[in-house]
């Protein structure tokens, strides 16, 4: 369909698509921020076992991880203004970006909450006991001893979260936001060179995720420099150097088993 394949178009599409990279990254950044805040708010009641809030957190987690992001996008975009009307908030003029970042943020928050809880709980209990025994307050023990170590543990999972979010943003065009995928579709329709735009699009996503992954790997190195570098875990089969057991687990643990 469309015009015959012409590889030259792939290259000429690249700069055009990069024009909208900013929008994509804006969504990622905004959603990450929102998500981490939401994640903390949701994780805390579960970590400290606060009665009512803990159940509410559970429902939040179940919902946002139990429904597809696409449905969530539509739900919030169409539904939120309606729900808030009786309360007197008029969101009908709110920019689309607001709904987009809000929804992606809440969605990411659900995964972030689990990441936060798991990494904090992974810090050896003895560390906390030593902190308490030395007379530190719970706040001091958390901020100076637990959190720094939890951060290092969380990075592989965080890395997957970020990359999953990046890929999820490709759905934002359904709400009319002109991010990269939306731009690619427009270019395709305009020039009838569909496959070329999508190849270019895939290429850009690849580069971005690769870069993000490398940056976060460097961050992980920095945050865990106090650890001995693990030797490759003995496995039945010889594995390539990349991918220790931990990173493979983290890859999957982020909960995103596949697509949207």
């Amino acid at each position: 369909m469309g015009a015959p394949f012409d590889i030259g178009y792939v290259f000429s599409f690249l700069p055009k698509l990069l024009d909208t990279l900013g929008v994509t990254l804006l969504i990622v950044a905004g959603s990450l921020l929102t998500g981490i805040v939401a994640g903390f708010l949701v994780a805390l009641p579960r970590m400290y076992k606060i009665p009512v809030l803990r159940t509410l957190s559970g429902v939040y987690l179940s919902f946002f991880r139990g429904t597809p992001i696409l449905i969530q996008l539509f739900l919030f975009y169409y539904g939120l203004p309606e729900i808030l009307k009786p309360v007197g908030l008029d969101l009908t003029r709110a920019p689309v970006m607001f709904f987009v970042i809000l929804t992606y943020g809440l969605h990411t928050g659900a995964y972030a909450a689990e990441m936060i809880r798991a990494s904090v709980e992974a810090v050896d209990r003895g560390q906390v006991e030593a902190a308490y025994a030395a007379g530190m307050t719970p706040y001091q023990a958390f901020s100076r001893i637990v959190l720094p170590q939890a951060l290092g543990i969380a990075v592989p999972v965080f890395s997957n979260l970020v990359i999953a979010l990046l890929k999820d943003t490709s759905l934002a065009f359904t709400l009319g936001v002109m991010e990269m995928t939306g731009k690619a579709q427009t270019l395709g329709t305009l020039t009838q060179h569909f496959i070329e735009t999508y190849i270019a699009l895939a290429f850009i996503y690849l580069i971005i995720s690769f870069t993000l992954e490398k940056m976060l790997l460097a961050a992980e190195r920095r945050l865990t420099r106090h650890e001995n570098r693990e030797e490759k875990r003995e496995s039945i089969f010889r594995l390539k150097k990349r991918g220790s057991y931990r990173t493979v687990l983290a890859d999957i643990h982020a909960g995103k088993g596949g697509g949207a």
Partner: protein
Amino acid sequence: MQLDPSFIWTAFWQLLGAIPTTLSITAVSVLAGFVIGAVTAMLRMYRAPVLAQIASAYVTFIRGTPMLTHLLIIYFGLPMIIDGLAEHFGWSFRSVSIPMIGFAYISFSITAGAYMSEVVRAGILAVDRGQVEAAQSVGMTTFQSLRRIVFPQALAAALPNLANSVIGMLHGSTLAFAVSVVDINAKAQIVASTNWKFFEAYLAAALIFWGLTVLIERVAALIEKRVGAYNRGGVA
């Protein structure tokens, strides 16, 4: 525009008809994806000469790009390839005869395959090397030790991740609307726009997905209990 709670119920019934479509897309992509993933994982772990690199490239590509992009590339690219080959070889088959859902099946299977590859890899890694040594020391062949010792344990270890992957593909199936397949999501869009009740329709869709997800989680937990009974090392 008033909220019409009763319509949620109505919408729910109208969406029911689309559930089989969603489920079939999920099932096909998970099953085909598992096969692709298992083969890919094996190729990489055994370092088959050229194929391992291709497998790795495949996994890297899929995991670094959005599922929607895969769908679009297959949707626009596959016909080109098929028609090109058909011209060349003189087949009577043309891509036009591929039903829309076929593109969803193919694309999603390819996507699932890459993620499944990691699931399989982690499952096998989780089995202690000592197990294989023990199997070999009683005289089992490689194949026997794989089949009787490694795979059962790998399966038990991989179950939670498998469940996550199934759920991931269930959610991913909503992308099928982009190729005009009427899954739950597409149906919700139709119901919403024909009745001008967007929130209610999408809420119904969300609830259906939520229900299906919880169902899958429960089933997985049950299976895990039975299959992984020997391993109470984790949180019992």
